[in-house]
């Protein structure tokens, strides 16, 4: 489980996050949602330590992350897998080398063991016979799959996904969402997904935190989000004409 307590973050004169607190449980897909520029990605970066908040605390299964020294942080980060918005695959390495990279750097496994593990996770995300391809030679959806494979290749406890289906068609988005949810259940990891995609929200939102203008406005799940009663959240959900029609029919 990951707990965040009173996270506040400012960039220059602009405050991005205001006193955000919450809990993200293990074994379910936790979503942080909200409109663009509302602080979702900044919150995620605060949680993984890429951005340091001015105030607040992040606890990984009770272990204080922000106050930890560099060595402790490095150790805790080795339990983390992250899928970035653009995949963040290393351009100079092929798919196999990309996925093998965390094993090369963080384990003492033999070459054979690493290769088995890589083929195993690539198979798990539905990629076969792409080992020697370069990132520039595969599609956006495949890059995301490789990103997921790289994130889970080590024995991780925490999985973070920053807008995993941005730039993908609806069908591929659905497949990526389902893959993230399946992996979360299979590996029993604490997963946090940042998204503004309503298909993801309704499809895999087992726990949802809604942010608006840097504040946490609502928490719940996909079953009760449509009847939240929060005007701001409803504006976000029912923004399109199609969703407005749907709302009327509810």
């Amino acid at each position: 489980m990951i707990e965040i307590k009173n996270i506040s973050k400012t960039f220059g004169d602009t405050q991005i996050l205001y006193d955000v607190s919450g809990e993200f449980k293990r074994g379910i897909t936790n979503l942080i949602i909200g409109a663009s520029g509302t602080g979702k990605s900044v919150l995620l970066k605060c949680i993984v330590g890429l951005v340091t908040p001015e105030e607040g605390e992040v606890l990984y299964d009770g272990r204080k992350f922000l106050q930890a020294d560099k060595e402790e942080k490095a150790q805790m980060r080795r339990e983390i897998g992250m899928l970035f918005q653009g995949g963040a695959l290393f351009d100079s390495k092929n798919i196999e080398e990309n996925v093998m990279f965390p094993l090369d750097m963080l384990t003492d496994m033999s070459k054979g063991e690493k290769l088995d593990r890589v083929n195993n996770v690539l198979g798990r995300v539905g990629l076969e016979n792409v080992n020697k391809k370069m990132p520039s030679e595969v599609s956006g959806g495949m890059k995301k799959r490789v990103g997921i494979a790289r994130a889970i290749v080590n024995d991780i406890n925490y999985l973070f996904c920053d807008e995993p289906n941005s730039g993908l068609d609806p069908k591929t988005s659905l497949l990526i969402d389902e893959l993230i949810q399946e992996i979360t259940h299979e590996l029993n990891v604490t997963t946090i997904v940042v998204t503004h995609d309503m298909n993801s929200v309704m499809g895999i939102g087992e726990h949802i935190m809604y942010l608006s203008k840097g504040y946490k406005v609502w928490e719940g799940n996909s079953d009760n989000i449509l009847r939240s009663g929060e005007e701001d959240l409803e504006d976000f959900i029912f923004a399109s004409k199609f969703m407005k029609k749907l709302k009327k029919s509810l």
Partner: protein
Amino acid sequence: MKSIGAYFIFLGSMFVRRETFSSYIKLIISECNIIGWNSLLIVAITSTFMGAVTTVQTAYNLVSPLIQNYVVAQVTREMVILELAPTITAIVIAGKVGSSIASGLGTMRITEQIDALEVMGINSISYLVLPKIIAAVLMYPLLVVIAGFLSLYGGYLAGTLTGIITESEYIYGIRISFNPYTVYFALIKAVVFAFLISSISAFQGFYTTGGALEVGVSSTTAVTKSCIAVLLADYLLAELLLN
């Protein structure tokens, strides 16, 4: 001043929480190939012409019955070894390698590849920058030695083919009153310049923010700052080691 402070903190970060030695070996070899081998052609071309032009221009300026022909080769040797081979090659390398380092790291920054390393618990500065600096410090003195030889050979070709100087006069000129310390001095300069170019370019690239436009800006800034640093270091080293 703030960015000078940040630069020293950046350099210090390379040496804390390093990865295992074996993980650097492959990277250093790869960087040696990029910085050394891939720069060989441009260094060979510039240094050969540099030597040729130096010989021709020196001969043009030393027209006197009191000055013997071999002095042209002697002057060429001193200019090439002391200044042209290490410094002009450094400017060329700053343009080629410095911009490549800055744009490579800048692109890694804006495409979140550096963030990916950090999230894995890897010291990204140490992992990405240290091999580049080690490779530059190893390879650049070799490039300077090659540049020196090719400049002298370029001078020889230009001098003998145009009839400015005979073969034997040129050979005599580059051997007479030779002080080996000038070679050591050139190699010391080479190590310092390599460190400055690679570290300044890496610093500029590593802290790129924004998009593709800013990567270009980082690359240009890296070359500009590297050249200024090289010229400043050139003067300081001359003051310190020659006076």
